[in-house]
């Protein structure tokens, strides 16, 4: 992502995981476990299944760290992509169709002590950028990423042709990247 400082220490961490360093896997979990669980829970809406998705994803990190290629993705993108993939696969397998995926099911914790300032500011940045997208770009992105809907399901749900869904996703992601990249 443009504007995102590439964190070399996160990449070094994955290199340690690839060498079989369990402590390094623990550190990867400490860095991303909370974000991963929040994301999985948002998509799956079931605590036990969200936990399964996170566990599977971190084991995939463990097994596949050797195939991580820093030239293709940052460490955090790679880890969160694995988490997202697991969560989406799991929710589709469970055939839990999300009735209203735009609203988080769990009550926001309202900024608990554990919700540190950095996380909060990052969340506001992402939500703020999303809010700046036109609705017709924002909705397919939210429904796909947070709801786990496939492009065909999106076309049906939004009642637009599949090609339109694809081009709106593309335009929306491009714009979102610019918005996030232009943040200070």
């Amino acid at each position: 992502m443009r504007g995102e400082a590439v964190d070399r220490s996160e990449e070094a961490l994955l290199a340690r995981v690839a060498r079989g360093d369990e402590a390094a896997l623990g550190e990867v979990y400490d860095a991303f476990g909370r974000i991963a669980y929040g994301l999985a829970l948002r998509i799956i809406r079931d605590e036990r299944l969200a936990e399964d998705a996170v566990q599977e994803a971190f084991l995939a990190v463990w097994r596949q760290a050797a195939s991580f290629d820093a030239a293709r993705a940052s460490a955090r993108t790679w880890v969160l992509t694995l988490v997202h993939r697991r969560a989406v696969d799991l929710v589709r397998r469970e055939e839990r169709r999300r009735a209203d995926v735009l609203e988080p099911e769990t009550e926001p914790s309202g900024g608990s002590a554990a919700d540190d300032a950095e996380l909060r500011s990052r969340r506001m940045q992402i939500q703020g950028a999303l809010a700046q997208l036109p609705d017709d770009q924002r909705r397919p992105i939210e429904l796909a990423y947070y709801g786990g809907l496939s492009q065909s399901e999106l076309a049906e749900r939004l009642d637009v042709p599949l090609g339109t869904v694809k081009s709106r996703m593309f335009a929306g992601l491009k714009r979102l990247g610019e918005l996030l990249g232009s943040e200070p």
Partner: protein
Amino acid sequence: MPTTNDIHDLVAPYALDALDPDERAEFERHLAECDRCTRELQELQGTAAALAWGVEGPEPPDGLRDRILEQARGEAQVVPFRRRRSWVAPALGIAAAAAACIAIGLGLWAASLSNDLDRERDLSAAQAKALQIVGDPAAKVTALKGAEGTLVVGSGGRAALVVCDLEPAPSGQTYEAWLIKGTPVEAGLFEASDTCTAVPLDRTASSGATVAVTHEPEGGSDQPTSDPIFSAQVT
């Protein structure tokens, strides 16, 4: 299947995990050959992953961290890597680990590539593909009949053979994999190695099909010309 649409258009849905398994597998095959999509995906996937930070969620349950570490601890680790010319080499670590795990009754493994491999960074598409399939924790694993090894079938029917201790093919011949559901179709050529070989199949393996391997003249055949040496059924 988006046969009538431009496959390049799948990059954004792929970045958002909005593809069905078949479409995903199709796009990943395309990705291995398309620099433009690879570059574009790099940007879009970074943006998509940033969306994870937009969620306000609770703390993960107590004990999840320990369970992850405990399960990781139970998995086979680091297998020595030996430099080889052939493309199967970088997959060797994983393949050997897989064989070791199968031998001791574990279904899971991890592999770590040595510094030798680090110097040999440019993994070919085939290597990346085999690694991806063999490393997929959701993949289904079936033991081979007639040889030491397994058939691994991942998402969208993407499949790889992991076969160990295979005799070299007779002079002037090669190993050829077939996917059989009715008429056999070619699924790739490979050579034996004195340890283990991971072979990504060129065809998606659908349920009920049989994967079989025969000796064929160098360059391969259109149809099998000898009896199968080993096989496995896709469950």
